[in-house]
Structure formats: structure tokens, C-alpha cells
């Protein structure tokens, strides 16, 4: 029964990812007084891309087509560690959040190679910019996760979530506040959202992630876009699980599980509204201003670690 629940939340995270993207886009449209497309549009778009043919540049090797497929598989695997409505992730072991970070790093590594393989300068440009963002994102991401793990005296995501869930909401530690701020900044950059990258742009000079995947089409592009949506879903689910796990089900009763699902949908809704409002309010940053965001995130996460010293045991 519990394995079924763990599997179900894993599959839910994968399949709901395009819906999340659709909801954010729709809400942004409403905020900008447009009607906007249906929230189911990303599914239609993926379906369309899956039916098209895969165009491959003549200069490319087999890596060009292998990269998005493997990167998709790695992103999917990273999702397996997350507990969202049921208190255990599908996979869970000591140090699993490090594996999560590095699975995403591997996926990005492959996509950068795929971009080089296209043989045009846009691929290299996108890969180079993506490399800068990922180099700077990794340290604050790991540092804030380490701060939470030290605070919880735990080694796996599931254990950290269980510990936070047992705490009193109104007595939350300063470590969590700082780590939350740091992780949010990193999550925005990692998923290529505004103000770091604009997922809607197709102007060569301003693109980061989009320039990297410029040469891709058809099913390869569908997998890339799906993986990107899954990554956004993953980051939001990670933030919810780490900083607002209250109400997550740990007993196998229908009531507890339904309550947990309901609460998760509410939390997700808050996250969607927050992203849509933020993206409607800010403009994209100049690329060399992005390191400053990471500087702030790194400083916050280091502070979070310093404050773990003062936590009462």
C-alpha cells in the first residue's frame, strides 16, 4: 500500500508538471489583462511535438539525440526523492539530496554537450551562459540543504521533512527563514524563470536556456520542455516539502491522505500565484547582474549554517 502511494506521488509530479506551467502562464495572462490560453495548452504542445519529426544537424553525433533523452531520465530520477503528500519519497537513503543536486547537474552537463554538437554559435553561447548560472547555483543550493540537514540532524530528504513536520509552525527557526530565502533564489535561477532567464523569449541575445536548446525539434524538444517543466515542479515541491510540510500524510487512512492532497493543492496554488505575480512585476536582469543574486543566496545560506550553531538541541 505504501509503495503504491510513493509511486503515485512520483507519477503525479511527472504528469502534473505541464499543468503547473499552464496554470502559471494563464495566471500571468490574467494579471496582464489578457485572456490567456487554456491551462491544458502545454499538454497539447507536447503532443504536437511528439508527433513531429526530429531534425538533426548534419555535423552532429549520436550524442545530439541521446542528450535530451538521458537528461529527461535523470530529471525524472531526481523527482523520485521527493515526499509531497506521503511522508516517504519513492527512493530515500542517506545523502539523497546530494544525489538529487548532482542528477540535475548531470542533466545540464548533457544538454550543454548537446548544444555544442549543433555546431552553431548559439548553442555554444547558450551552453556557456547556462554553465555560468549552474556553476554559481550549485554552492548555495548545497549549502542551504546542508544547513537544513544539520538543523534536523538528518541525512535524507524524507528524514528532514519528517523532522520539520514535527516542529511548531509558529516557532520556526531562523535557519529555515534564511535557507528558504536562499533556496527560493536558487530555484528561480535553476528553473530558468524571470528575472534570471525569460522562458518566453526567443531573441538570440537575451536567451540562456532557450539558446542552448535552439537546434532541437520534435520529440527531442518535447522531452526537453517536459523535463524543464518537471524541474520547475520539482523545485516547488522541494520548497513545499522542506519549509511547509505540515499536514503531510504518514498514516494509511483515506482521511489523512485526502487532507494531505487538499493541503498540497492549496500550497501549490500559493506558489503559482507567487510566481505569476513576481514574473509580472520584474524585468529580466542583465546577465552579469545574475551573479549578484547568487551572491545574496550564498551569503544567506552561509548565514543559515552559522545560525545552526545556535539552535537548541
Amino acid at each position, binding site marked *: 500500500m505504501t509503495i503504491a502511494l510513493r509511486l503515485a506521488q512520483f507519477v503525479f509530479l511527472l504528469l502534473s508538471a505541464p499543468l503547473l506551467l499552464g496554470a502559471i502562464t494563464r495566471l500571468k495572462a490574467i494579471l496582464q489583462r489578457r485572456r490567456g490560453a487554456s491551462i491544458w495548452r502545454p499538454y497539447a504542445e507536447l503532443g504536437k511535438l*511528439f508527433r513531429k*519529426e*526530429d*531534425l*538533426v*544537424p*548534419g*555535423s552532429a*553525433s549520436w*550524442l545530439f539525440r541521446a542528450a*535530451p*533523452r*538521458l537528461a529527461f*531520465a535523470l530529471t*525524472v*530520477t531526481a523527482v523520485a526523492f521527493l515526499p509531497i503528500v506521503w511522508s516517504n519519497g519513492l*527512493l530515500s*537513503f*542517506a*545523502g539523497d539530496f*546530494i*544525489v538529487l543536486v*548532482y*542528477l540535475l*547537474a*548531470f542533466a*545540464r*552537463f548533457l544538454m*550543454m*554537450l548537446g548544444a*555544442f554538437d549543433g*555546431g*552553431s*554559435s548559439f*548553442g*555554444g*553561447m547558450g*551552453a*556557456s*551562459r547556462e*554553465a555560468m548560472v*549552474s*556553476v*554559481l*547555483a*550549485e*554552492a548555495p543550493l*548545497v*549549502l542551504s540543504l*546542508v*544547513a537544513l*540537514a544539520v538543523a534536523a540532524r538528518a*541525512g535524507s530528504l524524507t528524514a528532514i521533512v519528517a523532522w520539520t513536520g514535527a516542529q511548531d509552525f509558529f516557532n520556526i527557526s531562523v535557519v529555515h527563514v534564511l535557507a528558504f530565502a536562499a533556496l527560493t533564489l536558487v530555484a528561480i535561477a535553476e528553473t530558468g524563470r524571470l528575472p534570471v532567464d525569460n522562458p518566453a523569449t526567443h531573441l538570440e541575445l537575451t536567451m540562456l536556456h532557450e539558446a542552448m536548446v535552439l537546434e532541437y525539434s520534435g520529440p*527531442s524538444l518535447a*522531452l526537453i520542455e517536459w523535463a524543464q517543466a518537471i524541474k520547475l515542479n520539482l523545485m516547488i515541491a522541494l520548497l513545499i516539502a522542506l519549509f511547509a510540510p505540515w499536514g503531510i500524510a504518514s498514516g494509511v487512512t483515506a482521511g489523512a491522505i485526502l487532507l494531505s492532497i487538499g493541503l498540497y493543492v492549496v500550497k501549490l496554488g500559493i506558489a503559482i500565484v507567487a510566481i505569476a505575480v513576481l514574473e509580472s512585476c520584474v524585468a529580466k536582469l542583465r546577465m*552579469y547582474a545574475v551573479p549578484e543574486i547568487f551572491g545574496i543566496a550564498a551569503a544567506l*545560506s*552561509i548565514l543559515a*549554517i*552559522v545560525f545552526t550553531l545556535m539552535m537548541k538541541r
Partner: protein
Amino acid sequence: MAGGISALLGILYALSESDLKRLLAYSSVENLGIIYLTIGAAMLCQKNGAPGFAALALLAALVHALNHAIFKNLLFLGAGAIQYKTHSLKLNELGGLWKTMPATGAFFLVGCVSIAGVPLFNGFIGEWMAFQSFLAGAQLSHPAPQLTLALSAGALALTGGLAAACFVNVFGTAFLGRPRRMQIEPETKMPLSMLVPLGALAAACLVIGVMPMVLIRPLWALVEGLIPGGNFESGAKIGSGIQMVTATVLIAALAAILIRTVVRYAPTWGCGLASLTGRMQYTATSFSKPVRTVFQPVYKASRKLEISPADKPYFPTAISYESTRTLHYEKLLYRPIVNTIMTIAQQLRRLQTGNIQWYLLYIFLALLCMFLFMRFR
């Protein structure tokens, strides 16, 4: 601490390097830095009465040292193979080599992925164990290890990110895309004696990456002799964790590959230009540009751009561009030491007069000193 700093500096210089062999040498500095960082963690845990964590950290250091030996050998041999074929190791001149040397390319890719420290390859095992020992040590209730080890995890993460960017750059510019300016000798075939070692090392990277216990178990016996009191439990979990991840990745990758696709080969989009040439691609130097700009205070690069004729900057006939980096550690750390030694050596040279009488006097004085020393000891 020194380990962490040398790891970061090493990889930063490696990233900005465009000569393959020097890049690999800098990356050795980085990896040795990681190993020392982990040994430092082991000592810190041991001092604070946590032999179990100390054993884990020492194990991580040993595992990473051995893994580094494997993938660094693979990369150096691969670099040798590139030079054999193209007579060049300058990344800015290479490109599209995978088409001409497919086997070497595949093995070199395994080396690059391993050194980038990502899961399913052996470079990750040591780094992951290092992270785990830092994490375990940071949960000791002493302020010193808690702070140092938690921040070490951050340094390790930054190093890992930079290493990944660095080796994307290496493989991407040398093996992928279109050829740049090098000369390929079509008649030189890779001899089997070059390919077999490369293949064997690449296979070792993969096997250890997927089944780390083959390496961890024998090393554990060694560590147990050095630091008694550790338990093998945390080490054993690493193997099962990696296996679960491998299985999930394989299933998902299989599902993604089985999606039915129609492939058509088409030229790369060239912004309306008729055709793209290898010169238009991003080079190794341009790839590392954003990171170099961010870490500008470390590099202290100086640039010189000359356009001639000077009065018509938009219609140049010749452009020369020069960029140099200051090697800070060399200027601040090694130069003074070397200079002092050189000065002392210069003074000592005066002793060597070439006169046999002087030498006899030296021998006499040395004997006298020795007798006096023995007498009054």
C-alpha cells in the same frame, strides 16, 4: 582549508585554460585539493571524538584518490591520442574530432563525465562520500567541526560545478561540432595499443560508478586498520543507493528512447547565412568567458585589443587581441619562497672558489665541528 582553497583555485585556472594538457594539470590540483579537504575533515572528526565519521571521511579520500588516478590517466592518454592525430592540444584549434576518432571520443567522454563528478560514474562516488562525511561531521555538537565541515560542503559543491563546466568545455570544443583550424592526418590510424588502455580505464570508470562496492569494500579493510571504531553501515548504504538510482535512470531512459521518432538530417540554422563554418563556433575561451568575468578578482586578467587602422574602428584590416591572467598564488606564495632560496644559493656560491686549499679547509673545519659536537654532546 588549504585543500578547499587549492581545489577552487585549481579548477578556476583549469577552466580558463585552453591548452588541454595544462588544463588537465590544473584539474589535478583541484582533485588533490578535494582529497586534502576530505583528509582534513577526517582529522577534525577524529579530534572531536567521532572515529566513525573520521573513518568515513578517510574512506572518501582514498576512494577519490583511486578514482582520480583512473579518470585522470584516461584523460591524459586521451589527450595523447588527440595530439597523435592532430599535432595540437590547443582547444581553440580542435573541433568535431568525434567524427574522425569515434572510439577515442567515446572513451574520452566517459573520462570527462567521471571527472565532472556526476552520478553513475566513478568521480561521483568519492565526492558523495565526502559530502556525507562532511554532513555527518557537521552534526557533531562542537562549533568548530560543525561550521568548518558545513562550509566545506559548499566549497566542494562550487568546485564540482566548476569542474562540470570545465569538462563540458573540453569535450564540447574538442570532439563536438565542426572542425576548427587543426590538421587531421587521415592516414594515421589509432593503434590498438592506444585504444585498449583507454577502453579499459573507461570501463573501470563505469563499473566503479555503478557498483562502487568493488572499490569501497577493499579500501574499508584498510581504513578499519587505521581508525578502529567506525562501522561499515554508512559505506554499505552507498552501494544500494547508487543501484536504486541507476535502475531508475535506466528505466526512464529506456522509456524516453523507445518513443517513436522520425529522424531527418538538416543543416544547422545559420541565421540566414548560406553556411556555417567551424570558425563561427564558440571556442573554449569564449565558453569560459562568463565564468571568467564573474571570478574576475581571482584572475586579474589584463586585456589588450588593437584594431588597425585606428581611425576606422568599424572597418578593421587587422585585429589583435591579447588576454593574460596573473597567477596570483605564484606571485604571492611561490615567488617569495623561490626568490629567498635563490638569494641564499647565490650567497652560498661564494663558498665554491674552485681552490683545492679552500676545500681542504672546509673539510678540516667540518671535522673539527664534528669532534667538538661529539665531545660536548
